[in-house]
């Protein structure tokens, strides 16, 4: 049956984007396979007790981090949704977006500045524990950092799903005189329950593939994850066989988790209309208000603490001297250039996948199954979660080391991997807007014959400007702060800010590191603020 729709250029674009991602992932796998085949017995021998211990710790810290992030987030989100007039609510929510923009290495430094052996709280903590405060390295450090990142994220996601409860349900509940408990059970919990697997799954995946936090806060072999072990095997021990074994294990692990989560129904609920007015139909009781308020303040302090510590310790550094340093300037320029390119690539690839997915979904008949291509466009970016940046980097590192100078291709690797790594976030920012715009415009565009570039510039761009800017800023901030690929490929000739920061930490120049962290954190933050403002400006 011939279709009346001409070949949609969006689908072509999607295929090209998928191809690029496939090359990136395929190349890494090829590198691993060649290396594994080259030294089969070595790779097999690398599956030893150490490897299993590392794997066990990887899962254990991820599970704990998820629990400690998601369970409080449920309560905090509920508290925030119950009190639309809570003083500073908007500010709190904005503050909760900061960890998303904050590079992991900056947060790690902030946490160390606060809870570390020589941190601001060391005296208090030593007094509480009776004896010298040992610092927060190891599992506790990893958990604190993961919760710092993921509690605000999960809170915002839960709050978003609570926002999808129609105002009529609240009106009804207040008319029926529902108190807090049944209102939670009957109205809020079903929505939160639906969002829970998706949110918990996301947090778990982020923790299982977390690299920088474990590298900087994990202590020794007792608190090492697979990703950090891969890095060490390549950069320090130069043991390719072990790196292959670790990488395979990491892929298998993440793959199993993803499959399990998909089975659990980890699909987030569809996008509903956000209610226009804040709901105040159910007034919370006095006790509940106090509890909710306390909860919000605690979460706020926990999230704001490391940020404040970053600022304070950063200001103590000799910022003038740092800014004048040649190495710092070079690293700043390198970081900015690579991040710009990565963000551009990321948003372009994301848009191509989003558009292709939508075009394929529209073409598909209702009730019929998704084609393989549509599946790929739908979940293509998710592969990045399964194949984490370090794994990609390790694969290419092994593949290229016999052909070329691996350190020379650092820029290409950083841009490519960071772009793909940021895609899930960019897609999250862009897809709802794209699909909603398409819902409104699709038939009209078809009827009037508006397609291709004309459609992109005339119809799609105005409604996508803002989400694209948001996606771009996110991608750029993520890329700017990333210490994954650059940790593998970085060298004296190609240094980014996070790489330089790590080097200063390693050589115990803590004040320098704190100053750089402040600089990096501020840049990332400003980026997100500016892009957000730009997007809003264009909309009105």
């Amino acid at each position: 049956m011939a279709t009346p729709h001409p070949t949609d250029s969006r689908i072509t674009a999607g295929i090209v984007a998928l191809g690029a991602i496939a090359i990136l992932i395929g190349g890494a796998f090829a590198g691993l396979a060649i290396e594994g085949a080259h030294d089969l017995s070595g790779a097999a021998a690398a599956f030893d007790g150490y490897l299993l211990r590392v794997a066990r710790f990887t899962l254990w810290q991820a599970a704990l981090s998820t629990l400690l992030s998601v369970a409080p987030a449920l309560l905090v989100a509920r508290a925030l949704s119950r009190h639309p007039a809570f003083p500073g609510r908007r500010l709190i929510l904005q503050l909760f977006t900061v960890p998303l923009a904050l590079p992991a290495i900056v947060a790690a430094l902030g946490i160390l500045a606060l809870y570390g052996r020589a941190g601001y709280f060391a005296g208090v903590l030593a007094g509480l524990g009776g004896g010298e405060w040992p610092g927060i390295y190891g599992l506790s450090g990893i958990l604190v950092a993961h919760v710092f990142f993921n509690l605000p994220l999960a809170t915002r996601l839960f709050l978003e799903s609570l926002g999808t409860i129609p105002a009529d349900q609240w009106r009804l509940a207040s008319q029926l005189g529902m108190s807090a408990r049944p209102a939670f059970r009957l109205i809020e919990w079903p929505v939160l329950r639906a969002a829970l697997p998706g949110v918990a799954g996301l947090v778990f995946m982020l923790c299982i593939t977390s690299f920088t936090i474990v590298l900087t806060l994990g202590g020794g072999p007792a608190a090492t994850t697979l990703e950090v072990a891969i890095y060490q095997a390549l950069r320090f021990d130069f043991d390719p066989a072990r790196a292959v074994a670790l990488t395979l294990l990491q892929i298998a692990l993440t793959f199993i988790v993803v499959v399990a989560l998909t089975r659990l129904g980890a699909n987030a609920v569809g996008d509903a209309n956000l209610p226009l007015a804040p709901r105040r139909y159910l007034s919370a009781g006095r006790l509940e208000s106090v509890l909710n308020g306390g909860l919000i303040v605690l979460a706020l302090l926990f999230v704001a603490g490391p940020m404040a510590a970053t600022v304070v310790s950063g200001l103590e550094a000799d910022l003038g001297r740092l800014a004048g340093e040649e190495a710092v300037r070079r690293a700043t320029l390198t970081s900015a250039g690579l991040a710009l390119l990565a963000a551009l690539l990321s948003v372009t690839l994301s848009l191509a996948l989003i558009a292709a997915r939508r075009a394929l979904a529209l073409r598909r008949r209702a009730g019929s199954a998704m084609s393989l291509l549509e599946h790929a466009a739908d979940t293509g970016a998710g592969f990045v979660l399964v194949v984490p940046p370090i794994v990609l980097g390790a694969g290419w590192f092994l593949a290229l080391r016999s052909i070329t100078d691996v350190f020379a291709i650092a820029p290409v690797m950083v841009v490519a991997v960071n772009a793909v790594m940021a895609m899930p976030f960019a897609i999250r920012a862009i897809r709802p807007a794209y699909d909603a715009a398409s819902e409104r415009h699709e038939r009209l565009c078809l009827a009037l014959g508006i397609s291709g570039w004309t459609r992109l510039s005339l119809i799609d761009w105005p409604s996508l400007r803002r989400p694209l800017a948001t996606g771009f800023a996110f991608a750029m901030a993520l890329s700017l702060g990333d210490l994954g690929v650059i940790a593998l490929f970085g060298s004296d000739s190609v240094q980014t800010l996070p790489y330089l920061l790590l080097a200063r930490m390693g050589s115990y120049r803590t004040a320098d590191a704190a100053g750089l962290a402040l600089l990096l954190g501020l840049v990332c933050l400003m980026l997100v603020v500016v892009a957000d403002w730009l997007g809003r400006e264009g909309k009105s």
Partner: protein
Amino acid sequence: MTTTIDGTAAHKGLTVTLDGIAFSYGESSFRFDAEFAVGRITAIMGPSGSGKSTLLNLIAGFETPDAGRVLIGGIDIGDTPPSARPVSMVFQENNLFAHLSVEANVGLGRSPSLKLGKADRVAVAEALARVGLAGKEKRLPRELSGGERQRVALARVLLRDRPILLLDEPFASLGPALREDMLDLVAGIHAEREMTVLFVTHQPEDARRIGQDVAFLDEGTIAAAGPADDFFDRSGPDAFRRYIGDQGGTVAGSQHIARKRT
């Protein structure tokens, strides 16, 4: 307005033929066999889910039939993309791009890339004046009322000047008086251009007001079709009378009150 050599208006409609169309959508399946005569206004009526919108979507090319052919003016248009079909369609909502001015929204009917010359702008202004929106070129859709927005869509229909006009309940959300105005506008446009009009409606009085023919859809197929006068007569098809609710003598009796020939 140009005329052809034999003196007929160039805008005269074309027949629309559905030849053995089969289509399924999820659980529902549809079969359509029909011919809509040149230059007639046909009211498409029937219960929800009976396939009224599907029928229009198949003709417009938004849906592809599983089997059968859609012929317009005797030509199979199965492989023709929606924008190239000799068809304009007005939807219930989302007929306009919210971020584009009234002028741009209408102008898209002339150039999908919105490259409008001076002559095009004059044509746009004329079309807007014809639908009663003169001087509102620069407005944004959100500054217009619901009725005005549908007038903009009709102005674009004028500009596109296609022989077939499909209306998918475009006035359903308007109040009674406004709806009558809009129907009269459609009837007026039809009188000038003589296109073939298919319009979906739930309101019997709409059909009586401007419908020349009625096609009654039930359970995914065209259960009855014929001149509107016959339908609103006591002798109309039973299923149709059940659908509109047998109003006793008022069905026939109201005919001379509400009916307005165009």
